[in-house]
Protein backbone atom coordinates (compact mmCIF):
# COMPACT_ATOMS: atom_id res chain seq x y z
CA UNK A 1 0.00 0.00 0.00
CA UNK A 2 1.33 3.46 -0.83
CA UNK A 3 1.37 5.79 2.07
CA UNK A 4 0.46 9.32 1.16
CA UNK A 5 3.32 10.94 3.00
CA UNK A 6 5.83 8.68 1.25
CA UNK A 7 4.87 10.05 -2.15
CA UNK A 8 5.29 13.57 -3.34
CA UNK A 9 1.93 14.91 -4.49
CA UNK A 10 3.28 16.25 -7.80
CA UNK A 11 4.69 12.86 -8.61
CA UNK A 12 1.25 11.31 -8.28
CA UNK A 13 -0.49 13.56 -10.77
CA UNK A 14 2.03 15.25 -13.02
CA UNK A 15 4.16 12.32 -13.99
CA UNK A 16 5.29 12.02 -17.64
CA UNK A 17 3.18 8.89 -17.90
CA UNK A 18 0.05 10.84 -17.23
CA UNK A 19 0.90 13.34 -20.00
CA UNK A 20 1.69 10.47 -22.34
CA UNK A 21 -1.71 8.90 -21.67
CA UNK A 22 -3.43 12.26 -22.13
CA UNK A 23 -1.57 12.76 -25.39
CA UNK A 24 -2.68 9.34 -26.63
CA UNK A 25 -6.28 10.10 -25.68
CA UNK A 26 -6.12 13.45 -27.53
CA UNK A 27 -4.59 11.89 -30.64
CA UNK A 28 -7.20 9.12 -30.70
CA UNK A 29 -10.16 11.50 -30.26
CA UNK A 30 -8.86 14.11 -32.73
CA UNK A 31 -8.12 11.44 -35.32
CA UNK A 32 -11.59 9.94 -34.88
CA UNK A 33 -13.30 13.31 -35.24
CA UNK A 34 -11.21 14.32 -38.23
CA UNK A 35 -11.99 11.05 -40.00
CA UNK A 36 -15.69 11.37 -39.16
CA UNK A 37 -16.08 15.00 -40.24
CA UNK A 38 -13.63 15.12 -43.13
CA UNK A 39 -16.29 14.25 -45.69
CA UNK A 40 -15.26 15.66 -49.02
CA UNK A 41 -17.35 16.78 -51.90
CA UNK A 42 -15.36 15.50 -54.84
CA UNK A 43 -16.60 17.11 -58.05
CA UNK A 44 -13.61 16.37 -60.30
CA UNK A 45 -15.56 13.88 -62.41
CA UNK A 46 -18.41 16.37 -62.88
CA UNK A 47 -15.91 19.08 -63.82
CA UNK A 48 -14.36 16.81 -66.45
CA UNK A 49 -17.82 16.03 -67.84
CA UNK A 50 -18.72 19.71 -67.95
CA UNK A 51 -15.51 20.53 -69.77
CA UNK A 52 -16.24 17.89 -72.41
CA UNK A 53 -19.81 19.16 -72.76
CA UNK A 54 -18.57 22.74 -73.21
CA UNK A 55 -16.08 21.69 -75.90
CA UNK A 56 -18.62 19.53 -77.77
CA UNK A 57 -21.16 22.34 -77.61
CA UNK A 58 -18.64 24.69 -79.14
CA UNK A 59 -17.24 22.37 -81.84
CA UNK A 60 -20.41 20.67 -83.01
CA UNK A 61 -23.59 22.45 -83.95
CA UNK A 62 -26.68 20.47 -84.92
CA UNK A 63 -24.58 17.49 -85.90
CA UNK A 64 -22.19 19.49 -88.07
CA UNK A 65 -18.65 20.23 -87.07
CA UNK A 66 -17.48 23.83 -86.75
CA UNK A 67 -15.88 24.54 -90.17
CA UNK A 68 -13.64 27.17 -88.64
CA UNK A 69 -12.23 24.45 -86.38
CA UNK A 70 -11.52 22.13 -89.33
CA UNK A 71 -9.91 24.95 -91.30
CA UNK A 72 -7.64 26.21 -88.53
CA UNK A 73 -6.83 22.71 -87.21
CA UNK A 74 -4.19 22.88 -84.43
CA UNK A 75 -4.23 26.67 -84.56
CA UNK A 76 -7.85 26.81 -83.48
CA UNK A 77 -7.97 28.73 -80.20
CA UNK A 78 -10.19 26.42 -78.21
CA UNK A 79 -10.11 28.70 -75.16
CA UNK A 80 -11.21 31.85 -76.96
CA UNK A 81 -13.73 30.14 -79.22
CA UNK A 82 -15.29 28.05 -76.47
CA UNK A 83 -15.12 30.76 -73.78
CA UNK A 84 -12.86 28.71 -71.54
CA UNK A 85 -10.18 30.13 -69.29
CA UNK A 86 -6.69 29.31 -70.57
CA UNK A 87 -5.26 30.53 -67.26
CA UNK A 88 -7.18 27.87 -65.35
CA UNK A 89 -7.17 24.96 -67.80
CA UNK A 90 -3.75 25.37 -69.36
CA UNK A 91 -1.67 26.96 -66.63
CA UNK A 92 -3.10 25.93 -63.26
CA UNK A 93 -1.82 22.34 -63.57
CA UNK A 94 -5.19 21.00 -62.45
CA UNK A 95 -6.80 20.29 -65.82
CA UNK A 96 -6.13 18.48 -69.05
CA UNK A 97 -7.96 18.67 -72.36
CA UNK A 98 -7.31 16.46 -75.38
CA UNK A 99 -9.07 16.74 -78.75
CA UNK A 100 -8.31 14.44 -81.65
CA UNK A 101 -10.10 14.67 -85.01
CA UNK A 102 -10.20 11.75 -87.40
CA UNK A 103 -12.12 10.61 -90.45
CA UNK A 104 -14.49 7.64 -90.56
CA UNK A 105 -11.54 5.26 -91.03
CA UNK A 106 -10.09 6.73 -87.84
CA UNK A 107 -7.16 8.34 -89.66
CA UNK A 108 -6.17 11.49 -87.86
CA UNK A 109 -7.04 14.64 -89.81
CA UNK A 110 -4.90 16.94 -87.71
CA UNK A 111 -1.12 16.62 -87.70
CA UNK A 112 -1.26 16.22 -83.92
CA UNK A 113 -4.09 16.31 -81.43
CA UNK A 114 -4.89 19.48 -79.50
CA UNK A 115 -3.59 19.09 -75.97
CA UNK A 116 -3.93 21.66 -73.21
CA UNK A 117 -3.07 21.55 -69.53
CA UNK A 118 -1.06 18.95 -67.66
CA UNK A 119 -0.22 16.20 -70.18
CA UNK A 120 0.67 13.70 -67.46
CA UNK A 121 -3.04 13.45 -66.67
CA UNK A 122 -3.49 11.42 -69.85
CA UNK A 123 -1.26 8.72 -68.39
CA UNK A 124 -3.15 8.97 -65.10
CA UNK A 125 -6.41 8.42 -66.97
CA UNK A 126 -4.99 5.17 -68.35
CA UNK A 127 -3.88 4.07 -64.90
CA UNK A 128 -7.28 4.89 -63.42
CA UNK A 129 -8.96 2.60 -65.93
CA UNK A 130 -6.89 -0.30 -64.63
CA UNK A 131 -6.64 0.43 -60.93
CA UNK A 132 -8.02 2.56 -58.15
CA UNK A 133 -6.07 5.74 -57.56
CA UNK A 134 -7.95 8.23 -55.44
CA UNK A 135 -5.56 11.12 -55.86
CA UNK A 136 -5.07 10.75 -59.60
CA UNK A 137 -7.04 13.16 -61.75
CA UNK A 138 -10.59 12.17 -62.67
CA UNK A 139 -11.12 11.69 -66.39
CA UNK A 140 -13.99 11.72 -68.80
CA UNK A 141 -13.72 10.44 -72.37
CA UNK A 142 -16.20 10.95 -75.13
CA UNK A 143 -16.31 9.96 -78.78
CA UNK A 144 -18.50 12.19 -80.93
CA UNK A 145 -19.61 11.58 -84.50
CA UNK A 146 -20.31 14.68 -86.59
CA UNK A 147 -20.56 15.63 -90.24
CA UNK A 148 -18.43 18.05 -92.21
CA UNK A 149 -19.78 20.37 -94.91
CA UNK A 150 -19.68 17.49 -97.46
CA UNK A 151 -21.62 15.31 -95.03
CA UNK A 152 -18.60 13.10 -94.46
CA UNK A 153 -18.31 11.49 -91.08
CA UNK A 154 -15.83 13.08 -88.66
CA UNK A 155 -14.90 11.52 -85.33
CA UNK A 156 -14.00 13.68 -82.37
CA UNK A 157 -12.17 12.04 -79.48
CA UNK A 158 -12.28 14.25 -76.44
CA UNK A 159 -10.68 13.60 -73.06
CA UNK A 160 -11.06 16.02 -70.17
CA UNK A 161 -9.48 15.59 -66.83
CA UNK A 162 -9.62 17.50 -63.57
CA UNK A 163 -7.65 17.29 -60.39
CA UNK A 164 -9.03 20.35 -58.67
CA UNK A 165 -9.81 19.69 -55.01
CA UNK A 166 -10.41 23.30 -53.98
CA UNK A 167 -8.67 25.16 -51.23
CA UNK A 168 -9.43 25.85 -47.58
CA UNK A 169 -8.20 29.39 -47.03
Amino acid at each position, binding site marked *: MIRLYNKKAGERYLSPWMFLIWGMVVVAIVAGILIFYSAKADVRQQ*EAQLLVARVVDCLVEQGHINENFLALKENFDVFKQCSLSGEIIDKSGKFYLYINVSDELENSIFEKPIEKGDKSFKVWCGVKEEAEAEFFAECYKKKIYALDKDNKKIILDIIASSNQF*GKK*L
Partner: protein
Amino acid sequence: MIKRGDKRGMGLLLSTIIFIVLNLVFFASLFLFIGVKSTGVSLHEQVYAKQIALLIDGAKPGTSIEVDIYKLYEIAKKNEYQPAKSLVEINSQEKEVKVKLTERGKGYSFKHFNDALVVWGENSDKKKLHIEIKEAKA
Protein backbone atom coordinates in the same frame (compact mmCIF):
# COMPACT_ATOMS: atom_id res chain seq x y z
CA MET B 1 5.41 29.55 11.32
CA ILE B 2 4.52 26.76 8.86
CA LYS B 3 5.00 23.29 10.20
CA ARG B 4 6.48 20.42 8.13
CA GLY B 5 3.11 18.61 7.89
CA ASP B 6 1.43 21.81 6.72
CA LYS B 7 4.02 22.18 3.91
CA ARG B 8 3.19 18.73 2.66
CA GLY B 9 -0.51 19.57 2.78
CA MET B 10 0.07 22.78 0.79
CA GLY B 11 2.01 20.85 -1.85
CA LEU B 12 -0.75 18.30 -2.14
CA LEU B 13 -3.38 21.05 -2.46
CA LEU B 14 -1.35 22.91 -5.10
CA SER B 15 -0.76 19.83 -7.23
CA THR B 16 -4.44 18.90 -6.94
CA ILE B 17 -5.40 22.39 -8.15
CA ILE B 18 -2.92 22.15 -11.04
CA PHE B 19 -4.30 18.71 -11.87
CA ILE B 20 -7.90 19.98 -11.92
CA VAL B 21 -6.97 23.07 -13.98
CA LEU B 22 -5.09 20.95 -16.51
CA ASN B 23 -8.07 18.60 -16.70
CA LEU B 24 -10.42 21.49 -17.30
CA VAL B 25 -8.18 22.95 -20.02
CA PHE B 26 -7.85 19.52 -21.61
CA PHE B 27 -11.56 18.76 -21.72
CA ALA B 28 -12.57 22.32 -22.62
CA SER B 29 -10.25 22.37 -25.64
CA LEU B 30 -11.41 18.89 -26.61
CA PHE B 31 -15.09 19.87 -26.49
CA LEU B 32 -14.34 23.13 -28.30
CA PHE B 33 -12.63 21.20 -31.07
CA ILE B 34 -15.54 18.73 -31.30
CA GLY B 35 -18.02 21.64 -31.29
CA VAL B 36 -16.24 23.49 -34.10
CA LYS B 37 -15.89 20.36 -36.21
CA SER B 38 -19.45 19.14 -35.72
CA THR B 39 -21.12 22.35 -36.97
CA GLY B 40 -20.23 21.25 -40.51
CA VAL B 41 -19.09 24.76 -41.42
CA SER B 42 -16.15 23.66 -43.53
CA LEU B 43 -18.21 21.02 -45.36
CA HIS B 44 -20.94 23.54 -46.22
CA GLU B 45 -18.39 26.12 -47.34
CA GLN B 46 -16.85 23.49 -49.58
CA VAL B 47 -20.11 22.13 -51.00
CA TYR B 48 -21.56 25.55 -51.84
CA ALA B 49 -18.31 26.87 -53.35
CA LYS B 50 -18.11 23.81 -55.61
CA GLN B 51 -21.78 23.83 -56.56
CA ILE B 52 -21.69 27.50 -57.52
CA ALA B 53 -18.46 27.02 -59.50
CA LEU B 54 -20.00 24.09 -61.40
CA LEU B 55 -23.12 26.13 -62.15
CA ILE B 56 -20.92 28.87 -63.60
CA ASP B 57 -18.85 26.34 -65.59
CA GLY B 58 -21.93 24.87 -67.22
CA ALA B 59 -23.60 28.18 -68.05
CA LYS B 60 -23.55 29.91 -71.42
CA PRO B 61 -23.44 33.70 -71.83
CA GLY B 62 -26.94 35.10 -71.32
CA THR B 63 -27.77 32.72 -68.50
CA SER B 64 -29.25 33.95 -65.22
CA ILE B 65 -28.91 31.75 -62.16
CA GLU B 66 -30.52 32.11 -58.76
CA VAL B 67 -29.13 30.03 -55.91
CA ASP B 68 -30.93 29.57 -52.60
CA ILE B 69 -28.35 30.18 -49.88
CA TYR B 70 -30.76 30.09 -46.93
CA LYS B 71 -28.73 27.26 -45.36
CA LEU B 72 -25.54 29.37 -45.48
CA TYR B 73 -27.27 32.22 -43.65
CA GLU B 74 -28.54 29.75 -41.04
CA ILE B 75 -25.02 28.47 -40.38
CA ALA B 76 -23.54 31.98 -40.34
CA LYS B 77 -26.21 33.07 -37.84
CA LYS B 78 -25.48 30.04 -35.67
CA ASN B 79 -21.83 31.06 -35.67
CA GLU B 80 -22.73 34.70 -34.93
CA TYR B 81 -21.07 35.80 -38.15
CA GLN B 82 -22.18 39.05 -39.73
CA PRO B 83 -20.45 39.39 -43.11
CA ALA B 84 -19.37 42.87 -44.12
CA LYS B 85 -20.52 42.29 -47.69
CA SER B 86 -21.67 38.76 -48.48
CA LEU B 87 -21.21 35.12 -47.56
CA VAL B 88 -20.39 34.18 -51.15
CA GLU B 89 -17.88 36.09 -53.25
CA ILE B 90 -17.23 35.49 -56.94
CA ASN B 91 -14.06 36.96 -58.35
CA SER B 92 -14.45 37.13 -62.10
CA GLN B 93 -10.80 38.07 -62.64
CA GLU B 94 -9.39 35.22 -60.56
CA LYS B 95 -12.22 32.87 -61.68
CA GLU B 96 -12.76 32.05 -58.05
CA VAL B 97 -15.79 31.30 -55.89
CA LYS B 98 -15.25 31.91 -52.18
CA VAL B 99 -17.60 30.98 -49.34
CA LYS B 100 -16.96 32.13 -45.77
CA LEU B 101 -19.29 31.30 -42.88
CA THR B 102 -17.35 32.14 -39.72
CA GLU B 103 -15.56 35.16 -38.34
CA ARG B 104 -12.43 33.21 -37.45
CA GLY B 105 -12.16 31.04 -40.55
CA LYS B 106 -11.01 32.31 -43.92
CA GLY B 107 -13.47 30.31 -45.97
CA TYR B 108 -13.17 27.94 -48.92
CA SER B 109 -12.30 28.76 -52.49
CA PHE B 110 -12.85 26.90 -55.75
CA LYS B 111 -11.93 27.96 -59.28
CA HIS B 112 -14.26 27.86 -62.27
CA PHE B 113 -13.02 27.54 -65.85
CA ASN B 114 -15.72 29.51 -67.61
CA ASP B 115 -14.09 32.57 -69.17
CA ALA B 116 -17.34 34.53 -69.40
CA LEU B 117 -17.94 37.63 -67.32
CA VAL B 118 -19.71 36.69 -64.09
CA VAL B 119 -21.91 39.40 -62.58
CA TRP B 120 -23.36 38.54 -59.21
CA GLY B 121 -25.22 39.92 -56.24
CA GLU B 122 -26.40 38.56 -52.92
CA ASN B 123 -29.83 39.38 -51.52
CA SER B 124 -29.50 38.99 -47.75
CA ASP B 125 -33.24 39.48 -47.18
CA LYS B 126 -34.36 36.76 -49.57
CA LYS B 127 -31.17 34.78 -48.86
CA LYS B 128 -30.54 34.25 -52.55
CA LEU B 129 -27.49 34.58 -54.74
CA HIS B 130 -28.11 35.96 -58.20
CA ILE B 131 -25.57 35.24 -60.95
CA GLU B 132 -25.54 36.45 -64.52
CA ILE B 133 -23.20 35.05 -67.13
CA LYS B 134 -22.24 37.59 -69.78
CA GLU B 135 -20.01 37.51 -72.84
CA ALA B 136 -16.42 38.25 -71.84
CA LYS B 137 -15.07 41.56 -73.03
CA ALA B 138 -12.45 41.16 -75.73
